[in-house]
């Protein structure tokens, strides 16, 4: 199976401190791959590097082409999209404008189907439709999450990088978000999912990696990882689902 994303020996430094050390992973076409690990392990750092926000050393290949020289906007144009941990919404713009700008590049390429996709996002998140004229800065935490995901979908990604999409959500919304992730997968989008909620992540993923203090320490199919005693103890411990 060909890989949408192929990462080899990726290292990222903040000044002199190395936050990610020679991480290698691959996301096969059309699959969900999850990266789990404790706070400060380097998960967000890795996604930032893949998106072009942080400089890195090592090799990252997306859809068969090297990412090294690509700017963030060039990555977006090629279908790579990040829903960042901090969401980075446009607080002083309306929900609708946030979604519209998610499709900025499609607009400037003259894509006429953006309106239909806005409707599709509203169907997925009826809550956003109710609040389409509200400023994004006034949304609740859960609504922001939905908007961040919706905005990323507006770019029609081929590979979606998700940084803790269930962070701070009530259990009902967590289920909803994972439902949507599984659903997106059905439509052929590949997903790299970073999660604290390891139980839910391993349930929805095909493959997983465990990252600790900047290094990948374990990898395997989601089923293998879920059964691995070390994972069970550290991340699925005692049946409490985060």
């Amino acid at each position, binding site marked *: 199976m060909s890989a949408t994303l192929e990462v080899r020996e990726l290292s990222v430094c903040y000044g002199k401190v190395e936050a990610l050390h020679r991480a290698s992973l691959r996301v096969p076409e059309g699959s969900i791959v999850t990266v789990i690990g404790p706070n400060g392990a380097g998960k967000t750092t890795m996604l930032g590097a893949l998106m072009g926000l942080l400089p890195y050393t090592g090799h990252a290949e997306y859809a068969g082409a090297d990412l090294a020289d690509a700017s963030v*906007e060039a990555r*977006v*144009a090629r279908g790579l999209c990040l829903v960042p941990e901090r969401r980075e919404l446009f*607080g*002083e*713009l309306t929900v609708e404008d946030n979604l519209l*700008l998610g499709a*900025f590049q499609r*607009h400037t390429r003259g894509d006429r189907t953006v309106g239909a996709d806005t409707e599709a996002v509203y169907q997925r998140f009826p809550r956003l439709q109710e609040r389409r004229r509200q400023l994004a800065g006034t949304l609740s935490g859960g609504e922001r999450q939905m908007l961040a995901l919706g905005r990323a979908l507006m770019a029609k990604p081929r590979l979606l990088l998700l940084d803790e999409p269930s962070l701070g959500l009530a259990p009902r919304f967590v289920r909803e978000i994972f439902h949507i992730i599984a659903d997106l997968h059905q439509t052929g989008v590949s997903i790299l999912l970073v999660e604290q909620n390891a139980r839910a992540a391993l349930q929805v993923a095909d493959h997983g990696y465990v990252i600790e203090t900047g290094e990948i320490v374990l990898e395997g199919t989601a089923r293998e990882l879920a059964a691995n005693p070390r994972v069970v103890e550290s991340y699925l411990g005692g049946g409490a689902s985060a």
Partner: protein
Amino acid sequence: MTPEIVAWLAQDGITNGAIYALLALALLLVFTVTRVIFVPQGEFIAYAALSLALMESGRVPGTIYILLAGGALAAAMEVASAVRQHALARLPRILALYVVLPAAVAGAVWWAVPRNLAQWAQVLLVLAMVVPLGPIMYRVAYQPLASASVLVLFIVSMAVHYVMMGLSLVFFGGEGLRSRPFSDGQFQLGVLNVSAQSLWVVAASLVLIAALWFLFERSIYGKALRATAVNRVGARLVGIPANLMGQLSFLLAAFIGAVSGILISPITTLYYDTGFIIGLKGFVGAILGGMVSYPLAALGALTVGLLESFASFWASAYKESIVFTLIIPVLVWLSLRSRHVEEEEQE
């Protein structure tokens, strides 16, 4: 002080205030999108006003050489980066934008000057000469440093300002120039004798402000500019090109500066360096508005215009000092408040 004098001073203040408001909006736009404090704004005023006056007196303004040279410089930088990134497909576009277009404008100006065209045609040519200098300036001076701190960008701005002002002296000389008024009429408004040019200024400012509002609220590029201003990282993540937004904001600011220069050149004698002080008053207006909100910036600028006008009546020697002293209490207040905001964000 008689009511006539009050009305007359108010008219003067509103006319100037309208120009300051335009400049304040441009400064605010550039600052929020690129974090550049746009010191060279004033040069666009002077370049446009002086170019128009020169063309009217049948001389070819040196602006075209600045345009050609600036375009060549920008083209060289773009070509170098295209070669480095192995993106040679970009070359035709680069040449069209930075070489062919300036050359075409320069040619048109050469052709037009001896023919003494109608005033509106000359105004269009002046805009075509001056406005492209905005994006070219961004490409040459600011884009390579786009992620530098506000302070570094400010130092770049000062440097660009001095270079532009030096060129202004070289090409326009030290003499003061005025252009012909758009129309000579006078209107009787109550006790007040309103000159047609003042009405032109106020009307054009209102139209421009409305157009800006429309751009920000209705067009995807305007929304992208706002998005870049409110969240730079978010804007990059949805694929809004930061360089394009920088150039776009400089284009708008250059357009606003050039229009301001064209509007005031029939009522004010401009010298090669006058633009700076005018731009600075727009800046004071934007600061009075807290450097965040467009309506407040416009209101602040209008206040500056009125204050200046009345100060010139009571204490004309001090009118500049009075205007610039105004920013001290505002800056103190802003600095107190901004610390508060940062604390909130850290929570």
